[in-house]
């Protein structure tokens, strides 16, 4: 059970006094759980190969310039069944709902030969997790044709995505869409409506304006002001930290914990680092060591 800790903090003159409010958000969590169950049941039903072994590790996730690239490993195919793959995908999405929610995904299916209804199922699965499927890449002409019929992009190449605002521009310069999974440096200001998602660490050289969001699997370092929503450790890492020259976000999230900034405006911004301590998000002024 995920319990969100909503922390209303006040800044004392000698440090930080926090008044935690425990708000268990049972509802959305149980909904996700329920959906998982339902979907699994349907899949097993139509599948009926008895026991299906699912290996979510066979799904790799990378940050690309247009969002996330989800790659399904070839060797994970058990009996060549797309339903098995979907099951693995579902499990992966369900494990870290916060990381994927609101994101855009390109799916690399490799050599799999998929029909239009396979892809429709995939898209509705992603829809349920509030993830937009915008591209399907693969080597099979059948799959490509089916994807095109559904209006999906089949080439991640230099073509501009439909919503180019959600793009870390620096990645464009790489030519290749793949970035190292561990770190992403974005050298610009993230503006309202822009969203940056990356499974690894994220460094923003610039501001994160109100209305913008950064969701990272690892740490987030902002060399600038943070006014929007930042979510570190979104894949469940409670040890993730958020550092900024001026940390005044709309919301601060680490793993499954959520905190707001203190109401009172600090007159002079100081560099701060936020981390989870004893189950609470705590922000402390950065001290050179």
């Amino acid at each position, binding site marked *: 059970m995920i319990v969100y800790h909503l922390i209303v903090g006040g800044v004392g003159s000698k440090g930080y006094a926090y008044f935690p409010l425990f708000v268990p958000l049972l509802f959305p969590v149980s909904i996700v759980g329920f959906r998982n169950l339902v979907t699994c049941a349907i899949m097993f039903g139509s599948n009926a190969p008895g026991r299906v072994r699912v290996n979510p590790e066979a799904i790799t996730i990378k940050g690309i310039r247009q969002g996330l690239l989800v790659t399904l490993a070839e060797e994970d195919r058990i009996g060549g069944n797309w339903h098995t793959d979907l099951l693995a995908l579902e499990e992966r999405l369900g494990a870290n709902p916060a990381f994927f929610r609101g994101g855009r995904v390109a799916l690399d299916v490799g050599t799999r030969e998929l029909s239009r209804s396979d892809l429709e199922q995939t898209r509705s699965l992603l829809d349920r997790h509030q993830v937009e499927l915008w591209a399907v890449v693969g080597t099979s002409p059948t799959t490509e044709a089916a994807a095109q019929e559904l209006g999906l992009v089949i080439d991640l190449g230099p073509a501009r995505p439909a919503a*180019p*605002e959600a*793009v870390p*521009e620096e990645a464009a310069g790489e030519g290749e869409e793949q970035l190292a999974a561990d770190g992403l440096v974005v050298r*610009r*200001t*993230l*503006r*309202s*409506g*822009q969203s940056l998602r990356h499974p690894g660490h994220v460094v923003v050289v610039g*501001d994160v*304006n*109100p*209305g*913008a969001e950064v969701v990272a699997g690892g740490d987030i370092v902002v060399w600038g002001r943070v*006014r929007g929503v930042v979510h570190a450790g979104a894949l469940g890492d409670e040890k993730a930290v958020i550092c900024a020259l001026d940390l005044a976000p709309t919301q601060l999230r680490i793993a499954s914990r959520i905190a707001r900034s203190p109401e009172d405006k600090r007159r002079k911004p100081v560099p701060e680092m936020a981390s989870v301590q004893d189950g609470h998000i705590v922000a402390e002024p950065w001290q050179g060591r």
Partner: protein
Amino acid sequence: MAARVITITSGKGGVGKTTIAANLSVALAMSGHRVVVIDADVGLRNLDMMLGLENRIVYDLVDVIEGRSRLRQALVHDKRLPELFLLPAAQTRDKSAVQPADMVRVCDELREQHDYIMIDSPAGIEQGFRYAIAPADEILIITNPEVAAVRDADRVVGLIEAEEKGPARLIINRINPDMVRRGEMLGIADVIELLAIDLIGTVPEEPDILVSANRGRPLAFSPDGCLAGQAFHNIARRLQGEDVPFLTLREQGMLGRLFSFVRAGGESS
């Protein structure tokens, strides 16, 4: 000389895009340039009224795009100035009637004969915004000193950066000097700090702007003795590359300066 295409946009509605498009067009035309101002707000056209040209429209932008009229036929000449033309929007259609490529084509055709093409973008970030910025060489973002308008402007700046249309320049409209002084309104510095783009002008809030718009005679026609009218002409001069000092001090108002002077004097004694 090929024209410069300048799109005026904001994200949020009601911040003064059309007013500024009308006034800047008048100011540029008054300094001798050949100006076409295009109303890109198909379905909700207002620019013609603000320029007092509503009753002279025969053809519109969509007629041109769909081939019912030649471009020259659709241009409405503002007779108060030798070189000011309006290309009106269609009122009976909607934004889906225009594609970004259509606007590029129309502007390319106008470029030869004119110096400036101003495009008054509709509010929002959908189709209308997309086709309004498609042909732009330069973009002016209008905002008001209020959090919602600035937030939307920030969104638009982000979209423009993604389209590689920037860098956009900023006009802060409707500055109320009294409210800024009382700390009830975002200051110019606050807005610039957040948006981090170049400021090309500020326009104070003045009732005359509204009155002149209702009369169909933009304030820029008679700028003497009014700050907003001067502000429009200053922005027009900056667009032409002139280095015009900002009216920032005067935005406090003459009375305000006097008061702060008196206060400062009082404190020192």
